[in-house]
Every structure is written in C-alpha cells, then in structure tokens.
C-alpha cells in the first residue's frame, strides 16, 4: 500500500518470489545449454550465439506459458494465490529474457551487412504472401512489443491513472501476444528442427494454457459468483443465514459490477468486490475490526465506508442494503467511492437461527 508512490514495494515475500524466479531461469538456461543439446536438435554444430538465442527464446516462451497458467490456477484453487502475488515482477523479468533472445538474434543473423540491423530485420524476408517461409520475425516483434507495453505499464500508478477498465483492456494484449509467440515459434524454429521434443514442449505448453483457461471459465460459470436481477430497484443477493460471520457473499449485479456483502458483529455492509489496487476479489477476504483484507496484495478497506485506513488513500464504492425477511437486498446503483453507509443490523431472531 502506498501513500506516495515508490519505485518498487519490496518486502520479504517479493524478494523470495523473485529469487525463485531468477533461480528457475538460471536452472532452465543451464539445462538447455549444457545438458540437453542432443534432445533439442543441437547436435548439429551451431555457434554459441545461436545456442544462447534459442535458450533465451525457449525460456521466454516457458515463462510466458507459466504466467498465463497462474490466473486460472488461482481461480480454480486458492492454494495457487501465492503465485499471483508477484506476477508483475515475473512478467517484467520475462521481458528482459525475451529482449536478450532478440538481442542475440539481431547481433548474429542481422549484424554482418552494411545495413542497419533493425532495418535488416524488417526487410530481410518480406514473403508475406506465402505460409511456407512466412517472415515469422514479425510475430516475435509484435509479441515483444506487447510484452514491453505490459511491463512498462505495470506500476501501480498506471492502474490508477488509466482506470482499471482501460488498464485491463490494454493488458488484454497478453492474449494476442501469446498467440503471436506460438506463431513465431511454430513458423520459426519448429520449421527447422528435426527433433520433435521441442515441438511437443511448445504444443503441450500452449495446450495446458488453453485447457486451464477454459476449465477456469467453466468453473466461474458454474460455481462462480451468482448473477442477480433487480426487482423494483433492489437486487436480492443472498439469504442472510448464508453469510458467515467475518466473511462475505459476492454477487454479480445487473450492470455487471460485483458486490461483496459482508457480515461482521451481527451487521451487514456492502462494498465493490474490486480492490482499487489491482482489482483483487475483496469479497474473498476476511473482515477483522471492520477491515477487509484483499487476498491478492493485502490492501485493506473499512467495509462501512469503502476507505483504506489512514494514512492510505484508496477508496472503493459502497452499496446501500436492506433486508426483506431473510433476504439481503442491494441497491445496484453504487455510491461514490468512500461514501459511508450505516451497517444494517441483522434481527436477533435471525441471529439465533444461524
């Protein structure tokens, strides 16, 4: 949490996370370069420059594949949430690995002519009208460009400045970027390799990413937050007895926003489910002393007014509630972020039944 922005909000967990990522990269590169040249069609004599380019390229693909698996895994099983915690650093490190790959390629394949190497990259192969021999470099350029946009706009400032809607839309570039990277690999190195192990690794990696996202989407449809309809301006979101003390029920309101209705000290309060930091699911956090903690990065909000405790300044919208018997009704029109709303008491008779 920040009162003023700082370059990187380091803490012990982030140091550990980054150390594991960097160690894994080192191990991957060492295995690729020194242990498995025979497995990966490196038995033919290629020079160190090409060898390193392939190693860093393969590493970037593996990292991107792993990053894309984190989101659906965390949605399917909360035990994967720690992987989500510092995914931004993972992404930034991936960009550096991808740039290293591009650097080796440029400094070998395009460096020994009188032309500028960047210019040579663009005009060396312009066979855009055919699939065999298609200039696969263009897919890599797009993938790298997309990763650069994502990594350079990953600081907390950007989410607040652009708004979550625009920021998320911008970061949807990761999906066409991944498709482009598959095309870059498929129409690039896989065309040349006579050994199928690398081909299988790429195919399986992309397959796992696709299956995980489809399974997570199906899970959200079947077991995710329920959608509710408004009746006479109020939307029934839950039976009060279904809300556990200190926790929340999440519902998707008619406009598509998610509301989290919390129960604490025998009273109900409702705030937006989207954390102002990175849109983490506040309704999956636990309430203590009226403060809910976002399960993604630990940002806290008072569920009675949607405000982070001083000196922090984050705010989320609040919602008006009322009870119709046992049913909790929400006014789908959110209050401006940080608007105090008095918690509504749960009738004692209902408390006894829970």
């Amino acid at each position, binding site marked *: 949490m920040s009162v*003023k922005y700082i370059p990187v909000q380091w803490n012990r967990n982030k140091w550990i996370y980054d150390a594991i990522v960097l160690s894994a990269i080192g191990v991957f590169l060492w295995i690729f370069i020194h242990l498995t040249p025979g497995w990966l069609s490196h038995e033919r004599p290629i020079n160190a420059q090409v060898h390193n380019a392939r190693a860093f390229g393969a590493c970037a693909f593996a990292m991107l594949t792993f990053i894309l698996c984190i989101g659906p895994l965390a949605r399917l099983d909360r035990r994967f949430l720690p992987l989500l915690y510092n995914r931004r650093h993972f992404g930034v490190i991936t960009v550096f690995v991808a740039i290293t790959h591009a650097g080796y390629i440029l400094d070998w394949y395009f460096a020994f002519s009188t032309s500028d190497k960047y210019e040579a990259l663009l*005009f060396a192969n312009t066979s855009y009208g055919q699939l065999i021999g298609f200039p696969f470099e263009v897919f890599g350029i797009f993938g790298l460009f997309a990763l650069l*946009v994502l990594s350079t706009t990953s600081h907390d*400032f950007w989410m607040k400045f652009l708004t979550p809607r625009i920021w998320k839309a911008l970061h949807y570039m990761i999906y066409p970027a991944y498709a482009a990277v*598959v095309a870059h690999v*498929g129409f690039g190195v896989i065309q040349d390799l*006579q050994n199928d192990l690398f081909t299988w690794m790429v195919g399986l990696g992309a397959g796992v990413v696709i299956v995980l996202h489809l399974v997570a989407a199906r899970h959200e449809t079947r077991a995710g937050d329920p959608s509710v309809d408004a009746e006479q301006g109020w939307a029934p979101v839950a039976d009060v007895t279904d809300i556990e003390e200190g926790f929340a029920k999440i519902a998707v309101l008619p406009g*598509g926003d998610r509301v989290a209705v919390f129960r604490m000290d025998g009273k109900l309060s409702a705030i937006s489910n989207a954390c102002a930091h990175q849109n983490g699911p506040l309704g999956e956090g636990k309430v203590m002393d009226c403060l809910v903690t976002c399960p993604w990065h630990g940002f806290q909000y008072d569920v009675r007014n949607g405000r982070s405790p001083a000196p922090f300044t984050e705010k989320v919208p609040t919602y008006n509630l009322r009870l119709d018997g046992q049913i909790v009704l929400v006014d789908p029109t959110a209050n401006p*972020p940080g608007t105090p709303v008095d918690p509504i008491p749960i009738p004692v008779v209902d408390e006894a039944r829970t």
Partner: protein
Amino acid sequence: MDIAAGILDFVYIWGIIGGLVALAFLTFGIDRIDEDARGAYMFRVLIVPGVLLIWPLVLWRWWVLETGRDKWPLRHAPPRRSHSAVWIALAVLIPAIFISALVLRPTWPAHIAPERLEAPIQ
C-alpha cells in the same frame, strides 16, 4: 528497404514525441492529476518507458483528468466478462496456428547426405 527505413523513422519520431510528453507529464502534469505522486520522484523513472510507448493514451487521460471528465463508476468495472470469450477464440486460434506450422514443416530427403559448399574462387 525504403518501407523498413520508413517504419524505423516512424518509431524514432514516435519515441521523440513520447520523450517530450514524458518530460512535460512527469515534471508537472502528474502532480496536478494524482495526489499520490506529489513529493514522489524516484518512481517517475519507471514511468518513462510506458509514456514513450503509449503517449497518445497518456495525453488523453491527462486531458480527461485535468478537465474533470473522469467518471468514477468506470474505475471499478474491470472487463472480466469478456475473458471467457477471448479464451474460446484463442482455443481455436492457437491450435490452428500450431497445426498449420506443423503441416507446413518441410521434410528433407533422409537419404541425401549434406554437402559442404566450397568458397567461391576469387
């Protein structure tokens, strides 16, 4: 070659304009539209590359915030609903790309031994 040079010129000009926008935005603009940036300077170095890449978006958001046109409800409505549709499309597109690449992969006659070419006689 001319097109390649033109593309690089475009990138160069884009970067120069981005640099000017970054200079203006990070020296005085950011303080006017974000209270959390006031008195915070080190993080601005990390913001520069992003401004270089998406400076038109930066200019537009700067104008929206400066003129009070920002709509707060949109801040809390991330586009989660399109996520499933995107992945259904990618579940078709990515295998299509990969299978096409495999189908098009050339197979060389195994019985022909590679031949080392001699350097041309000067």
